[in-house]
């Protein structure tokens, strides 16, 4: 059995998209008030959902690799361009602080009837146009300080990826334990 299966069709996009949107909505991540509350450290849903998901997916891939079903080199591993990756993350973080969402969660929020989610999504399109207008001037910055192609944290730290996984589980467990009193409230208000 060779994985990945190479099922990259419109139907595959719709199927995995439906699952993605369903889970984010049921996890309460289409709520801009909850997302910004994470940034004020009043709600820990975003961090706990993201890190649990990363660990479950990474552990699954790691076990399947160990069993010989999948190879890391067949998976898409993005390459770091230190300044662009860090600065882009900073802009997306600022965008969430100001506008309440990130690109994916704005779709989820909009689908539940939030007009601010629709407007945020329209802003994303304008942001891309702005980027395209400035592209030539930005190019040196975008390509600056490239890391090795498809580098993993294990490559960076010269430790096995299994140990990286253990460290991530430790960090997620500590944060999960520290934030245990801050329960994910079922109907968070923007004033919380």
């Amino acid at each position, binding site marked *: 059995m060779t994985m990945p299966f190479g099922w990259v069709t419109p139907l595959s996009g719709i199927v995995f998209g439906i699952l*993605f949107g369903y889970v984010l909505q049921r996890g309460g991540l289409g709520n801009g008030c909850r997302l910004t509350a994470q940034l004020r450290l009043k709600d820990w849903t975003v961090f706990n959902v993201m890190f649990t998901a990363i660990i479950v997916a990474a552990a699954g891939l790691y076990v399947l690799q160990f069993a010989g079903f999948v190879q890391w080199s067949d998976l898409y591993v993005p390459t770091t361009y230190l300044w662009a*990756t860090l600065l882009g993350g900073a802009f997306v973080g600022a965008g969430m602080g100001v506008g309440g969402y990130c690109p994916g969660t704005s779709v989820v929020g909009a689908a539940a009837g939030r007009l601010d989610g629709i407007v945020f999504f*329209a802003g994303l399109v304008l942001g891309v146009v702005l980027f395209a207008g400035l592209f030539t001037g930005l190019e040196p910055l975008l390509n600056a300080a490239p890391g090795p192609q498809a580098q993993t944290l294990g490559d960076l730290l010269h430790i096995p990826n299994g140990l990286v996984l253990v460290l991530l589980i430790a960090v997620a467990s500590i944060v999960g334990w520290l934030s245990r009193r801050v329960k994910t409230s079922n109907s968070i208000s923007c004033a919380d």
Partner: protein
Amino acid sequence: MTSRPIWSAHVAGFALGLVLLATFLATGHGLGASGTPTAIAAAASSAIAPAATAGNGYLGPMTAGGSDPLNTWIVWEVIGMGIGALLAAWWSGRMRLRVEGPPQMKTTGRLVLALVGGILSGFGARVSAGCTSGLGLSGGAVLATAGFVFLIGFFVTGILVGFATRRLWQ
């Protein structure tokens, strides 16, 4: 209004991790989002100003040779995302037309903030070539350095902005 409770963060995270794992095993890559506003920008720009779009270093290659940026996997995925979120919101009794944002602000102010936030986010996701889903979550799942560098920039700046604007939300 009665609504079904949302999942606990660890249950939602576990479910999201399984969806992400299945996506990697089927396609070889993870889940994303910001590629779709990018595709919409390329298609719209090409329809409004074809010559300027073709000459643009970023949008030009996406529309070159009559290729349709809207018929790409990420666009189908985001359409699915909208459908899945709509089904979940309807099923859990959380479908309601509203404008959310800082409680003290009027509707117009909230929408202006959403637009400005969207512009920052759309611009930023092109600088880093990925957003919280495509780079943070999916990059994190393959233990990519890039995913964690992105998440550091994202959370540090987000928290700084969150604290700087916290009075607005009281």
